[in-house]
C-alpha cells in the first residue's frame, strides 16, 4: 500500500530547487532523464546541459531505461585468429556513474525485473557493469496515460520501494521518500535543497495516490489472464488468431521494458578478425527457435506469440510471484497487427471464442 508514512524518511523538495539539485548531481554523475525534444517527443536522454533541455515528468517517455543497461546492440568481444590462436578480447567500455531521474513506476519495476534476469541463473557481466553505480530517482504517476495499466500488473501508479529516491508531485513541491542507501546519501549530501515533511504533505501524498488510482481509463484483467494461463484454459485458437495477425516486426519486444531476450552473433571485420555482438531479439520472430538444418520446434504460424504472453504472464509469475508485464502500455501503442498484450488479455478472458 503506497503510503508515505510507510517510508520512515520523507522530505520536501520545492520545484524551484529541483534544477539546483540536478545541477549538483550532474557535476558528479552522468544524468539521464525524460527530455522533450524539439519534435515534441519525450525520450530518456543523456543530459549534457541542464539549461538547454526540458525535463518532462508527466508524459511517459517513449523509450524505457532498457537501452541504457541492455543496449540494442553491444560489442561483447573482438576476436582475432593468428599466432595467438583464436583469441577473444573483452570490449567493455567504462560506464560513468549515472543518475536516472524521473523514472516512472513501470520502468522502475522493469529495471528491478531485469536485475533478476541478469543475475538469477548467472551474473551477466555486461549488464551488471552498467547497473553498478546507477542511482534511480523515481517519480510516481499522478496522471496515468490512456494506454497505462500498471494498476493491473502491480507496478504502479505509485511505488514504495525499488528506487533510491521516490518523488511525488504535490503541486509546487515534491514529496521525497528515501528508498535505498544511495538516496539517503544524496539527501544528506545536499540537504540544503530539502526541508522536513509534515503530516500535511504525507496526507496530500496519500490523497494524490488515491486520485491517481482512480484515473486509469483502461480496465485490463491481467490477474484473470494469469489464472487462465496457469489453468491452461486459454484456447489454442486465441494464440493462433493473434499469431496470424502478428506482422513479425518485433516492435513490441524492442519497445518493451522487460523484453530481454537477445541474440549473439559474429561480425567479420577481415579474414582474421571480427567482433561478437549481442543484440535485442524477439521470441515472436520465426527464426528465434529455428535450428541448424531448418528444424523449428515452434510452429510460427500458430504459435509465434504464445511464448511472449506465457512467459510474461505465467512463467515469470511462477518464478517471481508477479508478471513481468509492467503495464506501461508501450506495446499497445506500437502494435499495428493488433496482437499487443492488452488484446491478448482481453481474448484470454473471453475464454472460448
Amino acid at each position, binding site marked *: 500500500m503506497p503510503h508515505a508514512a510507510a517510508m520512515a524518511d520523507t522530505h520536501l523538495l520545492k520545484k524551484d530547487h529541483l534544477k539546483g539539485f540536478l545541477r549538483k548531481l550532474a557535476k558528479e554523475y552522468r544524468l539521464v532523464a525524460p527530455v522533450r525534444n524539439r519534435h515534441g517527443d519525450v525520450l530518456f536522454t543523456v543530459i549534457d546541459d541542464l539549461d538547454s533541455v526540458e525535463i518532462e515528468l508527466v508524459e511517459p517517455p517513449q523509450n524505457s531505461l532498457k537501452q541504457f543497461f541492455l543496449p540494442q546492440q553491444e560489442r561483447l568481444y573482438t576476436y582475432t585468429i593468428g599466432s595467438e590462436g583464436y583469441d577473444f578480447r573483452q570490449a567493455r567500455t567504462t560506464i560513468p556513474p549515472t543518475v536516472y531521474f524521473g523514472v516512472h513506476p513501470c520502468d522502475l519495476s522493469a529495471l528491478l525485473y531485469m536485475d533478476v534476469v541478469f543475475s538469477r541463473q548467472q551474473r551477466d557481466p555486461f549488464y551488471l557493469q552498467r*547497473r553498478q553505480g546507477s542511482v534511480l530517482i523515481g517519480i510516481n504517476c499522478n496522471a496515468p496515460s490512456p494506454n497505462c495499466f500498471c494498476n493491473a500488473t502491480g507496478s504502479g501508479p505509485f511505488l514504495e520501494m525499488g528506487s533510491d529516491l521516490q518523488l511525488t508531485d504535490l503541486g509546487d513541491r515534491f514529496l521525497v521518500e528515501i528508498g535505498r542507501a544511495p538516496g539517503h546519501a544524496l539527501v544528506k549530501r545536499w540537504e540544503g535543497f530539502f526541508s522536513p515533511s509534515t503530516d500535511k504533505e504525507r496526507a496530500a501524498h496519500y490523497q494524490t495516490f488515491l486520485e491517481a488510482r482512480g484515473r486509469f481509463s483502461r480496465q485490463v484483467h491481467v490477474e484473470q489472464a494469469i489464472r487462465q494461463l496457469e489453468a491452461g484454459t486459454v484456447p489454442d485458437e486465441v494464440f493462433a488468431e493473434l499469431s496470424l495477425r502478428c506482422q513479425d516486426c518485433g516492435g513490441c519486444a524492442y519497445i518493451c521494458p522487460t523484453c530481454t531476450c537477445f541474440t549473439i552473433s559474429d561480425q567479420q571485420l577481415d579474414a582474421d578478425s571480427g567482433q561478437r555482438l549481442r543484440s535485442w531479439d524477439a521470441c515472436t520472430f520465426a527464426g528465434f527457435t529455428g535450428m541448424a538444418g531448418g528444424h523449428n520446434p515452434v510452429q510460427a504460424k500458430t504459435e509465434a506469440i504464445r511464448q511472449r504472453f506465457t512467459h510474461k504472464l505465467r512463467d515469470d509469475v511462477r518464478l517471481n510471484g508477479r508478471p513481468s508485464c509492467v503495464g506501461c502500455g508501450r506495446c499497445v501503442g506500437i502494435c499495428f497487427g493488433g496482437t499487443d498484450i492488452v488484446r491478448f488479455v482481453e481474448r484470454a478472458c473471453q475464454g472460448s471464442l
Partner: protein
Amino acid sequence: MPQTITDIYLPRQAQVEQIVVENSQISTFVLALRDSQSNDAFRYQPGQFMMVSMPHCGEAPISISSAPTRPGAIHLSVRKAGKLTNAMHKLKVGDTIGLRGPYGRPFPIRQLTERNLLFVAGGIGLAPLRSVINTCLDQQDQFGTITVLYGSRTPSDIAFQNDLGLWQKQGVDCRLTVDAAEPGWNGAVGLVTSLMDDLTTEPSQSTALICGPPLMFRAVLGRLSTIGFADEHILTTMERHMKCGVGICRHCHMDGKLACVDGPVFSLAELRKLEIMELDDFCTTK
C-alpha cells in the same frame, strides 16, 4: 554489487588433437583446452554440452560425447548441419576453436546404478549417449545389463563404429538397424523400434535413455510405454537453438522451461507436463 564479475560469455581456446571421421556427415573432434591447467581442471558430467565458437560463425551448443571417467580430452561429435558445424568439418589437427561450458543438467548417473540400461539412438543422437555408455562401462559393476539400439539411414551412415565394436567386446548388447539397406548388409532394416521386439529386459528394473530425431523419439516412447517402462525411467536430451547457454537469452524455451538450464536432460515424466513439439500427438498429461 561486486566490482569484478566472472565473464561468463568469454570462450576459452581449445586445440583439435585428433579428428575421428565417423561417417560422411559426422566427425568426432578430440579437443584439449590450450591452457593445460584449465584442461586438467576441466570437469563435466554426461549429458552436458559446450558452447562452441568458430571464427565468424558465432556459437552453437554441442553435446559432449566423451566420458568424464576419461579425463584430459573433450570429445565433440558433430554432424554437418549449418554454417558453424560445416566450418568445424574443415578443421585440421592443431587448429583452435572456442569453448564455453560445460552447461546444462546432466544425466542422473547415480540414479542409474543397479539398473539395466537401454540406450536407443538415431544418427547423431548417439553422441550424448556415448558419454553415458562409456561412463557406465568404466564402472560396469555398478550397473545392470547395457543394451544399445542404434538406427542409421543406410549401412554407410552407421557412425561410431569403433565404439560399437568396443562396446560389443565389453558385453554390451548392440543392435543396429538401417532405414534402407545397401548391398552386403545382412542386418536389420526398419525403424529402431523393430529392434525392441525381442527385448528381454525387465521394464521395472530398467531405464531407457533415448536421443534421436522427433519422429523416432515419439515412436520409441510409444513402444517403451507399451512394454511397461515408467515415465520416470525414460530419459532423453533435448535439442534446441541456444545463444547464451546459461538461462538468459531464452532461445531454448520449452513451455516455461529452458533446455539449457532445466535440461537438456529430461525424464519423460517431466516432459509430459510440457507442451512441446516432440510430444505432439503423443498423450500429454497437462
